[in-house]
Structure formats: C-alpha cells, structure tokens
C-alpha cells in the first residue's frame, strides 16, 4: 500500500516536472517554432510596419452675419457641411485658423494692360509685406509675370529679402494662368498639414498668352486647397472677361475678389482680417464614388449666417494612403 503510494507520488512528481518543462518551452520559444510553422518574414520581429489610411478633410472657411461682419463666437454646432451631398455634423476638430501657419504667394501682374496702376500695386505689395501683422512662421513669396513667363522674385523669406525695385514694369503679354500654375506648384511642393496656402493676386485677370488652360489651373488650385484673393487692378468699371476670371478664381477657391477702387488700405485690411479670422474644421472623409467632392457650408439654426469656403476638393490616393488636400 505504502509502496503504491510512493510510486504514485514519484509519477506525479515526474509528471509535474514534464509539465513545467513543457511550460518553459512554450513560453520561451518563438511562436512559429513552437507551432512548427515556417515564418514568411524571418527578420520582421523588430521592424513591423503598420499601414493605415489617412482619411481626414481639413477645411478653412469664413462665417459672416447679415451685416457681412465676421462672426467671432461661432460654435461647432452652428453649422453643417454638405460634402458631396452628405450632411456632416460631426467634426474631429474646430479651431480658429489664426494659429495656422500661412504660406502666401503674392503675384504681381507687370504686363502692358496694368501699367497705369503699376506704381500703386507695388506700393500696396510693399505695404502688405512690410507693414502687415504676420506670424513669425508665415512664409511669403513674390512672383511677377509678364511677357512669356513668370519670375520668382523671392521665395518664402520675402519679409527680409524683397525689394520694390525687383518688380520691373516690363509690359508685354499676360501669362496669368501659367503664373498661377507656377505659384500653385510651389505651394504644393511645400505643402504641410498645418500650413494654409494663400495666393494674393494683383492683376486685371486678362490672360493673353498662357499655355495652361483655365480648367487645369482651377483643378490644381482646388487640389492644393489654395485660397485666392484676387485684387482687380483694371481701370474698366464694366464687367470684363478678366474680372469674371478673377471672380471665378476667388469664389471657387473660397477666397475673395476686391477691386483696386476700394482703396489700398481697405483692401489690405480686408485681406489681413480674412487671413486672421478664418476657421479650420476637420472631419472624416465621407465615402464617395467620385474623386471630386463638392462642399457647401450651411447654418444649423440661424439662417442669417453666411459661410464661404472653396467649392470642393479632390480626394486622391498617394501610394496606399488616401489623402485629402491641406487646410
């Protein structure tokens, strides 16, 4: 009886040792060796790469009341976005764009048709660059265009390097769309998530020689999320093709159209007020069958509120990630 009990105890002891051994093997061995499964990626243990899709829309917009004054106290639930027909009320974030860094390209038309106002334009541009209130991280570039091409006078650091005598009134034809194409390309190359690209365009809008089409430029502007502030320097008070072009560029991009007749101080104040009063909202990219999403912002309660933003955006795939354009 006693020997049976002892042998049973020894067997039990052996069994527990085997179990402990098995437990150690199980915990210390890599899982694929334990299960005898061949690993497809023998070296990936420490360099695992996770892929995810970027699906966020960032939108800068402006809200005004019935007197056309900027609304200072706008709340997240005061507006809804109609994105490709879908009504969106849930936003990831909602902030004032004053905290967003600006990447501004000032474009000066120096062609024949604007020469009568050239002096005033260069004075305005100089005042805008040197006397306006910019954040320390804002980037300012200046492009002038006339004849057959556009010239980049200074890039990103014009607050320190721009000189008025760099802009020469050369006359000749107006390559407006080519110049816009160049400016937008520059902005796209520098594109960052928290940078708001803006073009301040001083021109009469009357393109006479560009190789680039209006449609191409418009698409590129919408794709880059650039807002255009068009300052019409034409002397004609009638609605011309140039004026219509400038208005369309400003409206479609969510910017503004102003006439030089409004006076330089008012123009510059309006533009700077706008740049400091923009609102930035982000939301999840909604599903859509098309790459182009039209956008409209509408009030949720107060129908007197007016909203201004770009007409739409393109959601394109870059590699495996789906990415929406900048703010």
């Amino acid at each position: 009886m006693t020997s049976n009990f002892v042998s049973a105890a020894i067997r039990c002891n052996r069994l527990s040792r085997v179990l402990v051994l098995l437990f150690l093997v199980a915990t210390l061995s890599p899982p694929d060796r334990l299960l005898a499964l061949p690993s497809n990626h023998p070296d990936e243990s420490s360099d695992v790469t996770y892929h995810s899709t970027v699906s966020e829309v960032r939108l800068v917009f402006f809200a005004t009341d019935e007197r056309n004054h900027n609304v200072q106290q706008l709340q997240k639930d005061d507006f809804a976005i109609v994105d490709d027909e879908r009504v969106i009320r849930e936003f990831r974030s909602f902030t004032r764009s004053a905290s967003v860094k600006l990447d501004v390209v000032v474009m000066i038309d120096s062609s024949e048709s604007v020469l009568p106002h050239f002096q005033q334009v260069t004075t305005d541009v100089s005042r805008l660059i040197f006397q306006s209130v910019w954040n320390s991280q804002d980037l300012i570039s200046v492009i002038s265009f006339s004849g057959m091409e556009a010239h980049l006078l200074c890039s990103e650091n014009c607050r320190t390097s721009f000189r008025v005598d760099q802009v020469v009134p050369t006359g000749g034809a107006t390559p407006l769309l080519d110049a816009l194409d160049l400016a937008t390309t520059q902005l796209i190359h520098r594109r960052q998530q928290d940078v708001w690209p803006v073009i301040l365009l001083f021109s009469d809008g009357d393109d006479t020689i560009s190789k680039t089409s209006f449609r191409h430029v418009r698409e590129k502007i919408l794709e880059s999320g650039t807002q255009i502030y068009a300052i019409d320097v034409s002397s004609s008070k009638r609605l011309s093709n140039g004026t219509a072009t400038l208005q369309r560029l400003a409206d479609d991009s969510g910017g503004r159209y102003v006439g030089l007749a409004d006076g330089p101080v008012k123009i510059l104040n309006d533009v700077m007020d706008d740049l400091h009063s923009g609102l930035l909202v982000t939301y999840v990219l909604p599903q859509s069958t098309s790459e182009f999403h039209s956008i409209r912002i509408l009030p949720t309660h107060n129908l007197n509120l007016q909203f201004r933003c770009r007409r739409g955006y393109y959601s394109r795939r870059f590699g495996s990630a789906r990415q929406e354009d900048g703010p």
Partner: protein
Amino acid sequence: MKRGLWLAFLLCSVPSLLAAQFGIYQHGSVVRMHMGDCMLAHRGMMVAFGPPSIPVQDSCPEYTLVSPNVVYVIVGKTSNQLIPLAEVIDFRLQKNELAVRLDDAKRETKFEIKEMFVRSDWDRIQRHIDAQMKAAEVHDAER
C-alpha cells in the same frame, strides 16, 4: 388699420402656433442635400395648360429628410429656400406639401414632396450602397 394688421398677423401665425401647441409636428433629420432641378416645383395648371414657355434654368435645394418611419425627398420652390440643417427639425404634412418649422424664425417653409420611402426599405438600400462603395474602395486600394 391697426386692427387689420393684427388680424393679418394672427391669420398668418395661428396655424403654426396651433401646430406647435397640439404637438402635431413630426421630427426628422436631413441627411442629404443637393441643388437639383426646379421643374417639379414649377409644374402646375398654368404650366400644363398655359402657353409654351422657356424652361427655367434654375436649381432648387433638394433634401433627404429621415423620420422614424418614413423618408421624404423634398424640393424647395426657389433656389434660396434653405432649411436649417440642425440635428433634429420639426415638420408636418400639409395637403401635398411638407412644412418645415424654422426654429429661430418661428415660422414654416413649405416644400414639394418628390419621393417617399418606408424607412426600413430606405435603410436597406443605404446599407447596400454603403457595402458596394466599401467594396469598390477595397478593390481600388488593392490595385
């Protein structure tokens, strides 16, 4: 003159006030909106039997209004007939039209009803569309 004005004011405001008092408003949420054809709103006796006229090239807002049991597709009569896109809006059916209460303005605005769906059918269709779009997205991503 004053009495006349008061009477006119009462006649205008009483229907919506009564509607609010007796709780005959239904609740719903606008989930889709786009600018569509105004022709539906311009249909009528005068258009049908009157002299031929040039078709109006205008666009009117079209909303998909989802209520607990029925989904309505409604069309505005003019291009600027907007309704607030609040989470929940009050509306009621009046003859063949749908009257939406404008919260802040304390009045109603009327829309033509273009289509109606039973909510469960509409939900099923939406699920199907969403699944198809998701599948297309996965397919695109794999290419």
